[in-house]
């Protein structure tokens, strides 16, 4: 892989990999660092990589790096500190509704289990299909469906209290 090719790979996948780690960690700094390290790892062992598998590998490496990082440093889920209202072409009323909902989501997602939460965010915030989520996480579509169902139940239950 030349540096030019590596740059193309970066431009095609970096944003998605970084968002994926953000959905899991809820921390933009952690997401940026881990996504960057992931690409560095790919660069270091590039010759043993088959091009058609590179995408799956990126997510695998990022996931593994996140887990080893998380074991060292358990933090609360602060996703909504870095998730802000998109100002362009929206009204102040929309912003108020947004912030109200944001608080509700913040409270309920913080208490959700990590696996369900990641699936929920990849589906609702990233708009991935269940098959795509399964591919990213390396699990079956059935498992994705189950986690999603649990996530929605959690949202429903926590709000009844």
């Amino acid at each position, binding site marked *: 892989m*030349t540096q030019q090719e590596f740059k193309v790979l970066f431009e095609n996948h970096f944003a998605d990999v970084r968002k994926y780690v953000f959905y899991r960690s809820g921390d933009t700094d952690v997401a940026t660092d881990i996504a960057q390290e992931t690409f560095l790892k790919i660069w270091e062992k590039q010759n043993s990589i088959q091009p058609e598998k590179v995408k799956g590998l990126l997510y695998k490496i990022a996931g593994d790096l996140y887990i080893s990082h998380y074991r060292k440093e358990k933090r609360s889920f602060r996703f909504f500190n870095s998730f802000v209202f998109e100002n362009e072409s929206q009204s102040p009323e929309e912003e108020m509704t947004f912030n109200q909902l944001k608080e509700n989501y913040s409270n309920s997602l913080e208490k959700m289990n990590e696996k369900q939460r990641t699936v929920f965010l990849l589906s609702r915030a990233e708009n991935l299909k269940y098959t795509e989520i399964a591919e990213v996480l390396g699990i079956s579509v059935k498992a994705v469906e189950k986690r999603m169902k649990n996530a929605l139940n959690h949202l429903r239950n926590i709000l009844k209290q």
Partner: protein
Amino acid sequence: MNDKNLHITSLEENSNDFFSKGKIAWEKTETEVWTELERKIREKPAGKSVSIYSNILKLSVAAVFAILVGLSGFTFFYTKTIKTLPGEKIIAELPDGSTVELNSVSTIKYYPLKWKFQRKVQFEGEGYFKVAKGKKFEVVSENGKTQVLGTSFNIYARESNYRVTCFTGKVKVLSNSDESVLLEPNNHVELENGRLVMKTNYKTEKAVDWKMDRFDFAGRSLNEVFSEIERQFAVKIQFQNELKNRSFSSNFAKPGNVEEVLDYVCKSMQLKYIKQSDNSYLIVKNN
């Protein structure tokens, strides 16, 4: 309350809508991450072993594809960066003949291939701009942005500070909160607590004392003073946090060595400096 219930039921159902209205506030842009990564891979070259079975056809298809994508990306992403080191000053020339005199530790970045369509530079540090007449010229920094048609002006964009001084022509300065002011010759604007504060009849030569190797601190924090000394003499200066915001005013010619400056600043502020090693100093209170 009904209104509240409405929001509650929508939590699991209308989440797509909610998430589409927000965005993630990254600390670093993708370009910044790439710049770091590029530096890292230069230090860590990839393994050299090549598989004998590598399929030449596959490789050439990939290469052609990469070249095509690369070329179109090239015009958009190809940037030229000019940086000054501590103690260094240079005059940089831009493609249209505009010049920027850069003070120490300043960076200017632009897209040479897009220049004809867009005169835009990214800038951090301190610099004196002389812009050739032409279409809109834009200088973008972290804390603000300056737009001009053809003129000369000085920008100071370091840490949370943003200051612009206009010498000739007209300059429009925009803060990140979209506040804007129009500067005419002898006007000066500074970002104070997030707001742009303008001064008319400003002694503009004060803003470019640095070009004449002079220091001009008019009620600047010690933090800023010591940072400037660090940049001019390529040294490290440590000081107690409580000194950081004390203010210092003086105007003097840049002496030949760093200890002379430290001596001068410390004396008037009841401080003293301790030399720790060749290029490192510690500032403490005099008691």
